């Protein structure tokens, strides 16, 4: 009973807005704290890699952002599917807020991958690297989703049509990923010194795990902040938003 009621309350914009407002500072503070710990651990405590030297440290940014890029797409598609199936408008608002954040993290993963590639491969972009290439395709999927959503004047319709695209995309992401991987194993040139990752030591792994947790919290924080803005924009003209605008947040 209690859970069911709470679930129904989540579909109420003012309730969700206030809940998001209460959660946001906690998420923000814990994200920043973990980021600081992880950065210290990654840049100072972790030993340099015996093959890649100090250059490997970029994984503390690259791996978490690549992971968030992928996870955000799943979150976005799940939210969009919930919105589509049960006609929950706020679920569409969540999908709309997650998309640009996910796209940004994917972009960050691409940029850090390129920066890492320069000293390791001698080139910023390496088509033979399956993970980078499928990350790029993921970025294109995000762009398509954001563009499709924004081309509808009618927000409701844009929500629901782009939800279909998000679900089609999430079904295709694994297919694309594995086919790209298959493709790159065929074309792997001899120039790339593939650095297979043997068992990573704990003092290298711990900061990475902390960074992944920090990025996850950071993602949640950013999405929740965007969600608040999204709710206000969607609910503009309603009583509670007008009252909020007059009185300021309680």
């Amino acid at each position, binding site marked *: 009973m209690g859970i069911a009621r709470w679930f129904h309350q989540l579909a109420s914009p003012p309730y969700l807005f206030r809940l998001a407002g209460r959660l946001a500072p906690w998420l923000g503070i814990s994200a920043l704290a973990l980021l600081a710990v992880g950065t210290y651990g990654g840049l100072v405590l972790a030993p340099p890699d015996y093959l890649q030297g100090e250059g490997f440290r970029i994984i503390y940014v690259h791996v978490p952002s690549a992971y968030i890029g992928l996870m955000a797409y799943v979150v976005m598609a799940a939210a969009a599917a919930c919105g589509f199936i049960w006609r929950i408008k706020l679920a569409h608002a969540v999908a709309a807020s997650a998309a640009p954040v996910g796209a940004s993290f994917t972009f960050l993963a691409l940029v850090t991958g390129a920066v890492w590639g320069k000293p390791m491969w001698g080139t910023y972009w390496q088509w033979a690297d399956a993970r980078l290439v499928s990350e790029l395709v993921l970025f*294109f*999927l995000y762009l398509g989703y954001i563009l499709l959503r924004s081309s509808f004047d009618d927000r409701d319709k844009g929500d629901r049509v782009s939800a*279909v695209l998000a679900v089609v995309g999430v079904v295709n992401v694994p297919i694309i990923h594995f*086919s790209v991987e298959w493709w790159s194993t065929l074309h792997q040139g001899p120039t790339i010194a593939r650095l297979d990752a043997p068992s990573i030591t704990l003092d290298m792994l711990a900061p990475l795990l902390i960074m992944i947790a920090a990025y996850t919290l950071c993602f949640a924080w950013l999405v929740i902040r965007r969600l608040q803005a999204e709710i206000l924009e969607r609910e503009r003209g309603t009583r509670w938003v007008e009252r909020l605008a007059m009185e300021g947040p309680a």
Partner: protein
Amino acid sequence: MNTFTSLFARDLKLAARRWSEFSTPLIFFLIVASLFPFALSPDAATLRTVGTGVLWISALLSSLLALDGLFRTDVDDGSMEQLLLSPASLSLLVFAKISAHWVVSGLPLLLLAPLVALSFYLPPAAVPTLVLALLLATPTLSALAAVGAALTVTLRAGGGLIGLLVLPLTSPVLIFGTRATDLAIHGEPAAGALYLLGALAAFCLSLAPLAASAAIRVNLE
């Protein structure tokens, strides 16, 4: 099933009467392919190495070109609303439209592709595999592009957006299609890549009509 055949026949009849609309992608395919030698080099060795890619990219682009009108003409003249009202499931009707579209624009591509392949000095022995790969790949492309067309059916500037939405999704088709062709060119068995193309076709043809019909329904709400 009766609904399927009647809609299928109707689309074919319409295509036969507006054949210029449907021959455009084929001519586009020929033109794009014949522009590559200008951009690269007329040298036979170069053309032979890039031929597979040229062929597949041209086929991909031309299969997207005609899709803008797939549902839009029906929406504009109101027949889509009649289809929505019909007791048959919309997915089946969408599947009929995809099939008709493939017969009109995909099949002729299979006939033209050997011509382009030979002009790019691909070995004639590889042509049957190429045609088979295209036979398996073009339905997937039609199905994916139909999803794109359905998503953008009420948008004024839909055409460009379709490519943006659909092209990333077609990368597996491109990977397996070019792989099958390359294997055949080197005289190796291409069955593995062809099976994967077939699997993709089965997967996309069974799910894309569902997604496309959902998108059409929302668009026309």
